């Protein structure tokens, strides 16, 4: 058969199945590659239903037909690959719905988030406060006790009348507070529930008066509404002292960061200790003396690799489901991930041990433990420590994120604030996390330098 006839058959074959012509001409690898290229192009277009890309797939097929005809004369292979790439990127662009302008379009929404971000809620003005109270009977009995009280620092409070029924109005008189600062009245029912909450002004003499209604809510939890009981009226007055204090959010952040750091520290410590036995089992130089050891080596390696490839965030989700919300599941997740990661890294250190010094120490007549103590440990401990510190660094970051799925710590608070759209608190926690991570980076780098 002439080459020309053969080429026509090859072209026809490739027209029926892309690559078949190349197969016919005994270019097996080329046939396989071109078949995969064409098939994957068609599958992609079909799968994502982007009909405008049919032309690319068809062009690729046509090129394969042409190539079948021309082979072994070379045709330009870049062409179909380029076409394929253009198609893949084009469809990819459409699938991810790329829209860069969206970043700049919604300025209003951006400013809602970004403006409070500029005022992180970490501190509040420092204040001092005065507190006093007076007890009053509700509802009235025939002989109510006097609703009057003077406390140790000369604050005098009285209510008239001496008792109140629900929905009645009473007048609260106070003297001895700081002049010209607002005061707050809080109603505490016998079970300690705070119900009424009102602000009033203190005049220049330190006196104040508040007329308010005893709302039915004050008695809502009482078993018998008609039974007279003693309620408490508390007045709190606070004034700025100058200077600043840590706000409530700030307190949460400090607590959260403390939790996060402890989770990371504990997980690193426990993980590092547990990683050591695994690392010995996963060190090729220790585990190659007989087939059983080699099997253990391969198994350990595989398990470590699998565990390591599961993101600690996903482990945290699983542990949250098993043991419930809190820092504990987060710690478990990070510990597990640390064991796998450090186990692998430690085993590499062990594999890199220099056998020379070990041989030399054995030659002095040292026993096995002495060989380990003086020949092995000095070689691995510095690297182990450096790796562990590095891992702690990583663990602080991941324990931050793990709070998002219920693993406790700063991430947990941060997630709540994002949901509540409390962007001042969000901003404060961002800043604190950044500072902590930066400090940690700095110190861990320093420490690792020291060890070398």
């Amino acid at each position, binding site marked *: 058969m002439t080459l020309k006839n053969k080429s026509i058959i090859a072209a026809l074959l490739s027209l029926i199945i892309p690559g078949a012509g190349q197969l016919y001409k005994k270019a097996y690898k080329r046939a396989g590659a071109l078949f995969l290229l064409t098939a994957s192009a068609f599958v992609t277009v079909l799968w994502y239903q982007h009909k405008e890309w049919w032309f690319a797939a068809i062009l690729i097929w046509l090129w394969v037909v042409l190539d079948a005809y021309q082979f072994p004369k070379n045709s330009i292979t870049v062409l179909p690959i380029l076409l394929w790439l253009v198609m893949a990127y084009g469809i990819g662009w459409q699938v991810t719905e790329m829209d860069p302008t969206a970043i700049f379009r919604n300025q209003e929404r951006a400013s809602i988030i970004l403006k409070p971000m500029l005022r992180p809620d970490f501190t509040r003005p420092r204040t001092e406060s005065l507190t006093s109270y007076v007890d009053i009977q509700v509802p009235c009995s025939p002989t109510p006790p006097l609703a009057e009280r003077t406390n140790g620092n000369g604050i005098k409070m009285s209510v008239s009348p001496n008792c109140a029924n629900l929905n009645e109005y009473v007048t609260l008189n106070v003297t001895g507070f700081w002049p010209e600062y607002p005061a707050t009245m809080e109603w505490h029912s016998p079970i300690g529930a705070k119900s009424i909450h009102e602000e009033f002004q203190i005049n220049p003499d330190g006196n104040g008066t508040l007329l308010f209604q005893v709302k039915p809510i004050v008695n809502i939890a009482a078993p018998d509404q008609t039974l007279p009981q003693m309620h408490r009226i508390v007045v709190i007055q606070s004034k700025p002292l100058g200077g600043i204090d840590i706000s409530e959010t700030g307190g949460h952040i400090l607590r959260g960061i403390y939790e996060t750091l402890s989770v990371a520290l504990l997980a690193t410590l426990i993980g590092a200790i547990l990683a050591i036995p695994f690392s010995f089992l996963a060190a090729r130089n220790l585990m190659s003396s007989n087939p059983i050891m080699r099997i253990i080596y391969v198994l350990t390696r595989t398990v470590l690799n699998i565990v390591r490839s599961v993101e600690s965030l996903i482990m945290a989700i699983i542990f949250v489901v098993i043991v419930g919300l809190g820092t504990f599941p987060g710690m478990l997740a990070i510990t597990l991930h640390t064991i796998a990661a450090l186990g692998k890294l430690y085993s590499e250190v062990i594999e890199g041990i220099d056998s020379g010094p070990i041989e030399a120490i054995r*030659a002095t007549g040292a*026993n096995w433990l002495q060989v380990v103590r*003086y*020949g092995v440990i000095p*070689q691995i401990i510095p690297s182990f420590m450096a790796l562990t510190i590095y891992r702690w660094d990583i663990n602080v970051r991941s324990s931050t994120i793990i709070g998002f799925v219920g693993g406790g710590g700063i991430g947990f608070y941060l997630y709540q604030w994002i949901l509540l759209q409390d962007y001042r608190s969000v901003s404060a926690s961002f800043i604190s996390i950044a500072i902590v991570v930066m400090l940690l980076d700095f110190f861990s780098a320093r420490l690792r330098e020291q060890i070398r």
Partner: protein
Amino acid sequence: MLRVEHLTKVYPNGTVALKDVSFEVPDGEFLVVIGLSGSGKSTLLRCINRLIDPTEGKIFLDDQEITSANSTELRHIRRKIGMIFQQFNLVKRSTVLTNTLNGRLGYANPFLSLLGIWPQADKDMAMAALNRVGIADKAKNRADALSGGQQQRVGISRALMQEPRIILADEPVASLDPVLAHSILQYLEQMNKTDRVTVICSLHFLDLVHRYGTHVIGLKDGMKVFEGAPSEIDRARFKAIYGEEAQEVRATALE
């Protein structure tokens, strides 16, 4: 007196590194082992303190059989046999002093030594050993902060700590320049002459063999092909050990 009888070593991969090697080393000898790379010098030295277990043959130190010793006996034998290596084999991250003290591990209290506690007497002895090789001022330095020649001197002071009867030196100067080679070998010679320590040393340069050896063994492909005085190694013998194309290289030629 060290006696080696019909020593054979076959590695697990089938390499025959030593084939029926026998010889005797009287006390106080400076025995030099020569031979091409791969001829089995390192294997021979490592069989003597059983860092490598021989496949066949026996080795006696005086009347005690090293080859059949149990692990406790072996440790007691090993502490009387110091070893010096081509690559120095110091624990790089440990200090010079610790590396020297390592030579005392065979004598040390097993428990205290694990805690890193050494008797003052051992520390004094270590400083004396370092003094003897002239690097007492480096005692607190890390071993890898030293030059090659200094590291080998630490290797020697480590061996000194063992108060050895025999020193095995496996190409102790092959990684050093010729001037340093002489200074290191002079320490061995001094131990040999003044302390009556038997030295078994593998060497590559013939002039070093002539200068330091009192007796020579030549190995070729794991077999003993020569034994005699250094002066007996003439051109013919040299070619028998090193092969037809070999040229004698003198370390001193570089000086």
